[in-house]
């Protein structure tokens, strides 16, 4: 069996990890396992390694000529390093990145902390979304009084957003 990283030498190191019931395997030769820090005290995580392999293939989904307008990063660079160039790359390469993230993580939407000024915006957006759903139900069930009240609440929140 050949090494998954260099594709040249015979693989002698075999790693298996089960994440969320999905088995992920990677085969490495001696040199690549050292280079990837498989025996390294601190940083090694199989996820990082798998990312460097599987992910680079996934990101190919976008057009090959794609280049980040902020930092000049390309898909070829990602393939080489397994890291992105700057925060803008997440928008530039979104098409390939999102499916990759859904394989890697529990979901594709962040639901934790946000920086101070963004936190209120996110809170309002979430609230509007839930009110909108209530409004739709109210209209569908002909509860017009309730619907009007919900509509006012939404308007008020949206006004706060535009401030």
């Amino acid at each position, binding site marked *: 069996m050949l090494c998954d990283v260099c594709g040249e030498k015979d693989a002698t190191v075999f790693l298996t990890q089960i*994440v969320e019931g999905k088995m992920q395997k990677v085969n490495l030769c001696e040199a690549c396992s050292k280079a990837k820090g498989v025996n390294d005290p601190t940083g090694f995580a199989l996820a990082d390694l798998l990312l460097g392999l599987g992910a680079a293939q996934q990101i190919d989904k976008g057009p090959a000529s794609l280049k980040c307008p902020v930092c000049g990063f390309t898909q070829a660079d990602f393939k080489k390093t397994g*890291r992105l160039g*700057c925060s803008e790359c997440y928008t530039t390469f979104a098409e390939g990145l999102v499916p990759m993230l859904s394989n*890697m993580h529990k979901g594709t939407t*962040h639901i*934790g902390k946000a920086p*101070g000024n963004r936190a209120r915006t996110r809170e309002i957006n979430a609230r509007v979304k839930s009110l909108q759903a209530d409004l739709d139900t109210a209209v569908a069930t002909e509860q017009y009084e309730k619907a009007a009240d919900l509509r006012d609440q939404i308007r008020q929140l949206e006004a706060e957003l535009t401030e």
Partner: protein
Amino acid sequence: MKLSRIISNAGEWISGDGPNRQIVVSSRIRLARNLARTPFPGWAKRAERLHTLELIRPAVESLPEMHDAYAQNLTELTALERQVLVERHLISREHAAKGAGSAVVMNVEQTLSFMINEEDHLRMQAIRCGLQLREAYAMVDKCDTELARTLDFAFHEDLGYLTACPTNVGTGMRASAMLHLPGLVMSEQINKIINSVNKIGLAVRGLHGEGTEAMGNLFQVSNQTTLGESEGQIIDRLNEVIVHIIEHEENARQTLIERRATILLDQIGRAYGILGHAHCMTSKEALNLLSVLKLGVDLELFPSSARVTIDELFIETQPAHLQKGVHGQKMTAEARDALRATLIRAKLKELPEPDMAKIPATEAQKETNDE
């Protein structure tokens, strides 16, 4: 402030106290943050990295928590000094290898440390003694909130905090606990535990290296995913798993006492004998034997005051710590092993012999019953 002043004191997570301290050595939370629309350190040019440093370092140093901090650009530290920080988990191995633009800021208690221009522009970490993941998160969360007032962190409406590696995107948080599990190793249950922890999407690593043959029976458990769950959910899930592991470890120890007391006492006695009399000792051997003594303290075969002595030896016998007091040329491995043995022998003189009477040797009797 000088590095020597920082490292002359053991960190709070070594000398302090915390819940479940016997099994959970330390709890760590690390947050990764980046400046918006600025090349990540691995992709940035030297000038850009220096610019990032100029923006972040003063912001970190002006945090109220950091008023008496130690701050240093990594280029101003020797390889040995950086390695000392790695051995204390205050900077990562990757960060230690970085050049111009990289810096570290930490408080005197060594509970908070900030790595500037690591893989991400800023990685901040809180480390506490025992099982204190929530407390560690509260510390680092407060710093993060404060820093976000002045620094423009890269944040995406759907994806959350953006990081150089997509494995960290979302919360940018890695929560981990260092567990001391001699009972599960001795009773050969550790692989079963590691496999089941992996199955639920958490990572288990040794103190030094991947795989089950972790040195000193020390294992790190951490979250593997960072997107789709809130910080609180990740910490709660990890915490729950750790509580289970603690329970298993306690049961394993109890079973050893009841069924294999002679072997247990033999191991502790031998560890005490070898550590007290060896003249040449590798760091691997030292860690493994110290782990057995640590178990002896937990089982009350040694006075409880021995705990700090042993925990400090775990750190003090690591290669860079060993050499930090020695000036001049880099020591050979052989010279280090001799120095390590000398240090341990001296420390072990403070430790009385294990009081084996605390554990009745039930084994012989049990075997006759079995016959």
